[in-house]
């Protein structure tokens, strides 16, 4: 197991110093050991999605553990985004889109007819590919959802929540003097962290991230990845990425999607070093996709 990790890290950081990697791999190994005792946060059962009757995602089954980062990888159009949108029922707003199957979120099927979608979305936050802060002030961006859900009732509560959310997203120090300036005036990476802060303001237990770094430069990406690492202490994260190194860096589990099907889902180390499926190997080594 340990050797697999060392191998894995060597694979993604070719040429970096071996000793340093070994230390990292040991700490990762310990983490993994801990995570085996984690409980299942999301249980996806037989999820299929149809657009206009055409199947886009076929019969997905997977369990997602609490306080873990699960990466979804796969070529474009393989149904990753469609699948991730099932988890907070964002597909409901797409016309002619039907979802079959069940997703148990803490033992509740979110596709039950009596589930309050509004509440569901406040406990499953989402961050999009392109940073999409509202063209309002940073402050208003954060307090919009809490106000909507009645979480905050007074100005002092709002101030407190804004500071807490921005701090958790690692943005507070950078923007504390310009909370009343427009959120769209920030840099791309800051905007994305503002979107993360906006999502965690309602304290979701799961955060879905749909290629959160695809429009950011490497430095901003590194900041977001660090943020993901710290977020998982309290929350469960599901992240779509096209960047294999990113998947390897941030996630504990990786799921490989291809043509609407879940091909392989296991520990990140296994996927990247010893994939069972030929297609997975082909994709991670860059032979297709």
């Amino acid at each position: 197991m340990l050797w697999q990790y060392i191998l894995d890290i060597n694979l993604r950081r070719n040429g970096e110093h071996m000793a340093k990697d070994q230390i990292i791999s040991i700490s990762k190994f310990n983490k993994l050991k801990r995570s085996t005792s984690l409980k299942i946060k999301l249980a996806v059962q037989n999820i299929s999605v149809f657009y206009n009757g055409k199947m886009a995602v076929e019969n997905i089954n997977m369990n997602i553990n609490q306080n873990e980062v699960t990466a979804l990888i796969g070529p474009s159009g393989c149904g990753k985004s469609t699948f991730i949108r099932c988890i907070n029922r964002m597909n409901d707003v797409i016309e002619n889109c039907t979802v079959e199957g069940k997703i148990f979120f803490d033992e509740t099927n979110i596709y039950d007819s009596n589930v309050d979608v509004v509440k569901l979305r406040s406990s499953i936050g989402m961050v999009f590919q392109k940073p999409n802060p509202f063209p309002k002030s940073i402050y208003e961006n954060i307090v919009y959802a809490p106000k909507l859900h009645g979480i905050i009732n007074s100005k002092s509560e709002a101030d407190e929540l804004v500071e807490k959310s921005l701090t958790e997203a690692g943005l507070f120090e950078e923007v504390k003097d310009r909370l009343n300036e427009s959120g769209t005036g920030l840099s791309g990476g800051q905007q994305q962290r503002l979107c993360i802060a906006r999502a965690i303001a309602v304290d979701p237990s799961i955060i879905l991230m749909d290629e959160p770094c695809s429009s950011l430069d490497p430095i901003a990406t590194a900041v977001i990845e660090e943020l993901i690492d710290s977020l998982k202490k309290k929350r469960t994260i599901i992240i779509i990425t096209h960047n294999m190194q990113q998947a390897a860096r941030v996630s504990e589990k990786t799921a490989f999607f291809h043509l609407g099907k879940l091909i392989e889902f296991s520990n990140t180390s296994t996927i990247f070093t010893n994939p069972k499926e030929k297609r997975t190997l082909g994709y991670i080594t860059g032979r297709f996709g």
Partner: protein
Amino acid sequence: MSNIIRNDILTPVSSKRTTKEKLFKICGLSAIIFALSMLVILFTTIFSKGYSAFYQTRIKLDINFNEELIDPTGAREITTLNTADYSKLISQSLFKFLNIDKSHPKSSEIKSLISYNSFLTLRDRVLNDPDIIGKTKKINLIASDDVDQMLKGNINISIPEENRKITDFQIEAIEKFKSNGNILTVFNKTLFTKSDSREPEVSGVLGAIIGSFYCLFVAACISVPIGIFAAIFLQEFAKKNKVTDFIEININNLAAVPSIVFGLLGLSVFINFFHLPRSSPIVGGLVLALMSLPTIVIVTRASLLAVPDTIRNGAIALGASKMQAIFNQVLPLATPGICTGVIIALARALGETAPLLMIGMIAFIPDTPIAITDPATALPAQIFMWADHPERAFVERTSAAILILLSFLIVMNAMAIYIRHKFEKKW
């Protein structure tokens, strides 16, 4: 190999291509110059014809408020004061000044120097202050339109007397007034404080402006909410299917329907079926509302479409319902565009004449409308009617009314541009 490529790059750019590009640029530039020069010609003609309507000739007369003529009994009863012959006061004063007798063969020519309606000025003076009776006061009276036009140089006095509107005897009298300093040129307040009249010198656009304003008010009250909500529903909530496609196509068709057809609709539906009062701003407003509805719907939909989906998804992913997402996040972003579209649609409605033709708003209405059910006319209709009058004074008033209408339109369009620049948000 590399030599060939280099030679290829170094050969001069195909002259045919450069000529084509130059030709295109020249075509575009000349089109713009043509359009601009047309605009300049239009404005200069209207302005040069119309500016003189903004001032007016007055004749200062010593009016003797003769008690025997106004109120022989001295009872000061309103009816007596109302019905007294004030025109006689004016003619007496004129004859006295010019030293002629009322039996003079050309005395009627002299009487017509002063606007026919001037007796109303004197009557109002007396009714306001009955103590004036028995005194002599200097009063500025509006000169008749012919005098006004002559002094503005619009009547050629070198042609034979029988071919012009003003006689030699009148010219003589005017010269006498002039040399005594009794001819005044003042700002033409009447143009803005009076409504239509048979006498050009006392006609104004107030009634038309108020009529237009009422029409626009009714049109805005009806078309703006209906148009915006219809557009929000169609764009954001309605399912895309054959029915909505059909509706969409027909809204676009409706925007292209000639406005006179809306006038016919108004006539048959609002007047003949609902029996709303003819010639009233409420009917005009309803017709203009129908006419601007498709434009407002189209513009609102375009503004909503311009708001990126990421904003909607962002709000929905935070747990907002679809309606909350649209009303809290999307609509505020679309508002500048919607406002601009609404103002432009209403500006078009303000300048519309044809539908008003069908519902009787093109009529001689000398009273200023008070309620939206009173008979009224509108600015473009007033222009249309004045353009029909043969009097030279109405020609300049037509141009003046056009200037007033244009200034309203310019203000509205400027407002639209201002709103767009001030409130538009970038993301």
